[in-house]
């Protein structure tokens, strides 16, 4: 995309060049060189679950009505502007003065009220259908806890906790599978939004919210926090991986295992457990039981780190541990002041936690 711009001629190119100059003034703080760009438009017009479809249909209905109103009223306006403009600038005579008309005014009061009622009834029907839907007992239950600036997913029925990347089973006509989310926050207000799958719902401290969805297509869907929650709100990304029931079961089984204990990286594990990493992170089966940061038991099974701020590669992981502020300025993880060698060992250890 950028290349195409540079080839074009015209004033836009100068403006673009100016912007490029301005933006390269400071040294790069993120957009790490090893990062892949995920090409996915999280469009609300591309729904992939029951609630998203219902909302999409509602939106089309509303667009049709408001569009019709706009066309009618705007046409009247354009007509008036053309037909009744003053043609002769020297003409100072006044047109006939009309002060009102009860019939017309009544008409354009009653008709809008009727339109509002139609809109309201349609909206209410869909509102109740989504919000008051009963959850079947077989629903996949996930407790979502928003943190500054990452997402915690507690699969309490299955007995494990994940972070930032939500895995759910796909729903089909033969085997409907609803995923039921209960949302809470550990600190400030957040909002959980994956446009392709459902409308956003806030995660608020001391106030449990509920959302459900039944995704109809296997794939990875992007989303992010949608309620300003502090410095790194913009990088509080999230991903939903919709999997076949078999893949989902396999994933669950893997997540239920305690942390891999590979003797080859015992050095790294030893460093991890002796530093204050353990006061913030959990790795099940080890002394690390801290609850402030994400659960790292299966860290290496995730595609991204820092809640989507960077790809999960050894190079990025090293940068992250060295100086989290470099990858995600303002994130709440402190720089651990480890030596280069120590970090390499820890990275090697974390990379075994599949």
């Amino acid at each position: 995309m950028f290349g195409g711009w540079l080839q074009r001629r015209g004033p836009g190119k100068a403006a673009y060049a100016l912007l490029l100059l301005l933006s390269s003034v400071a040294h790069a703080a993120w957009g790490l060189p090893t990062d892949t760009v995920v090409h996915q438009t999280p469009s609300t017009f591309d729904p992939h679950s029951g609630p998203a479809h219902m909302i999409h249909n509602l939106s089309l209905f509303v667009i049709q009505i408001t569009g019709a109103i706009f066309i009618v009223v705007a046409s009247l306006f354009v007509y008036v502007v053309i037909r009744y403009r003053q043609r002769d600038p020297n003409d100072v005579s006044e047109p006939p003065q009309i002060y009102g008309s009860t019939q017309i005014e009544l008409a354009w009061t009653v008709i809008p009220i009727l339109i509002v009622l139609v809109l309201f009834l349609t909206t209410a029907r869909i509102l109740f259908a989504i919000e008051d839907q009963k959850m079947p007992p077989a629903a996949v239950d996930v407790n979502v806890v928003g943190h500054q600036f990452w997402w915690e997913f507690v699969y309490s029925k299955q007995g494990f906790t994940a972070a930032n990347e939500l895995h759910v089973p796909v729903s089909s006509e033969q085997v409907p599978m609803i995923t039921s989310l209960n949302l809470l926050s550990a600190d400030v207000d957040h909002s959980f939004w994956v446009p392709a799958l459902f409308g956003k719902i806030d995660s608020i401290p001391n106030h449990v919210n509920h959302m459900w969805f039944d995704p109809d297509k296997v794939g990875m869907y992007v989303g992010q926090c949608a309620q300003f929650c502090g410095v790194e709100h913009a990088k509080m990304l999230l991903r939903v991986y919709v999997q076949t029931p078999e893949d989902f079961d396999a994933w669950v089984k893997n997540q239920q295992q305690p942390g891999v204990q590979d003797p080859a990286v015992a050095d790294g594990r030893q460093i991890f457990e002796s530093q204050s990493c353990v006061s913030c992170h959990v790795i099940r089966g080890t002394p690390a039981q801290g609850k402030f940061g994400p659960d790292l038991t299966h860290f290496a099974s995730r595609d991204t780190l820092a809640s989507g701020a960077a790809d999960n590669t050894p190079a990025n992981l090293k940068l992250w541990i060295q100086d989290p502020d470099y990858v995600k300025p303002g994130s709440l993880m402190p720089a651990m002041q480890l030596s280069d060698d120590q970090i390499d060992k820890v990275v090697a250890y974390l990379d075994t936690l599949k």
Partner: protein
Amino acid sequence: MADSTLPIGSAIDLTPPSEVYGTWLDVVNSWVTTVDHKKIGLMYIGYAAVFLLVGGFEAILLRIQLAVPHNNFLSPEVFNRIFTMHGTTMVFLMGMPLVIGFANYLVPLMIGARDMSFPRMNAFSFWMTALGGLMLYYSFIGGVGLQGAGSAPDVTWWAYAPLTERAFSRGHSTDYWALSLIVSGFGTIGAAVNIIATTLCLRCKGMTLFRMPLLAWLYLVVSGMILVTISPLTAAQIMLCVDRYLGGHFFDSQAGGAPVVWAHFFWIFGHPEVYVLVLPAFAIANEVIPVFSRKAIFGYPAMVSASAGIGVISLSVWAHHMFTVGMTSAQNAFFVLSTGLVGVPTGIKIFNWIATMWGGKIRFATPMLFCSAFLIQFLFAGLTGIMLSTAPWNWQLHNSYFVIAHFHYVLVGAIVFCFFGGFYYWYPKMIGKMLNERLGKWHFWLFVIGFHLCFDLMHIPGLLGMPRSIYTYEPGRGWDTLNFIVSMGGIIQGIATAIFVYNLVYSYFKGEEAGPDPWDAWTLEWATSSPPPEYNFATEPVVMSRRPLWDLKHPEDPDYRYEE
């Protein structure tokens, strides 16, 4: 227009004002100590104009950062401060002073009064508002606290708890936000009380409430709304200060408090507040459109009822900003209905304006250009508002760029456009010189182009999943090109505004003499010299209809024969 033939003649004192200015200090002193509603109005407007530029500059900074993904122009900390200050500035230091400034200047003149009801309280209100603004901007240097987490507030302009609690907002930046708005809030309430007392108690002889110009009516409704709108914000901010300084627990979830309570209180203020900002834009349209269409406003009683109706219904819609916080479906449904209903009187006004233009002889001088653009743009903004009111769809649109596009469409496309129109319309009255028409048209067309480039396109990233309040965004989501063009639109609006500012200054020195009634208008302010003498009218006017000057200019066909 030969003013000496106006039989309201003795009301106009055509003796040239004695130009005894004295020293520079005398001039400053006369402005600082003034209790004259016209001077205070001009100070409010000048104050708003300065902050329009400041807030606009902040917007340009934001748009440069967002022009490309993963940009490094502003750090996240700075971006968050700038967008918080942009919103807070534009609403409280630009919007409210502009609204109150026009009220101050015009209301006494339009009702044939000598000044506002309480001139000293008027001055006090202005200085409180000014102080509030200075306090807010002092935060840039004075907000320092723990971990260098000071400086300007960075919690968004709606400052949700618990982000604003001591635990999550260290330092004093949030305190500057709360305290400066409490201070300027007192000024705003004072101004509202003054406007109510003025319109109810100082109308000239014969001017019953139903003969008052619609601008005065709208300001009466606006002032009533301010009384019940600003107070909840002040209350909530006091509660926030109790939490932050006295260890209170209003929004402390650890002690059983509910952050959602802040959201309710804030939006109980926040929603009527936007109607407080938009009703004066309607007021300007109500004056400009009839004069430039050469017709009386269509359906004056309906316009009054619709304005009052908007004022009342708008107090019941606030939670449409909160459809995603998890209210029950019944509560959500209520707010869907009330929000839809507030659109009905709003639509009525649009139809009445078009009906006013229908059958007229429309002159497209710059004020009318701006008010015509306002009409279409406000129609569009209202319809995106209806889209946002449908709660399930709102769950997708809330906190996205669609919302930002919608409310800027109203704030800029409706309010700023109308106020630009108001500037071109009343600047001759206030200063005595016409604003340059050629510059005006350049201003208008450039601003229209920039506005639509910026805010039409801005709806799309919202529909494509781009949330708001983010200092950067991921590439590859289909948002890149749109954001870039949006930023270009912002810059073009900046250039257009620069032309406007130049016009203001240029015309002050070189503008054409205006005379008392350059637009051939019909309300009482045009029966004074330009600028009016300090006492406004030499003798108290007496009126018999809604358009006293129409009656004088058309004695064979006066309005009072037709008004019910």
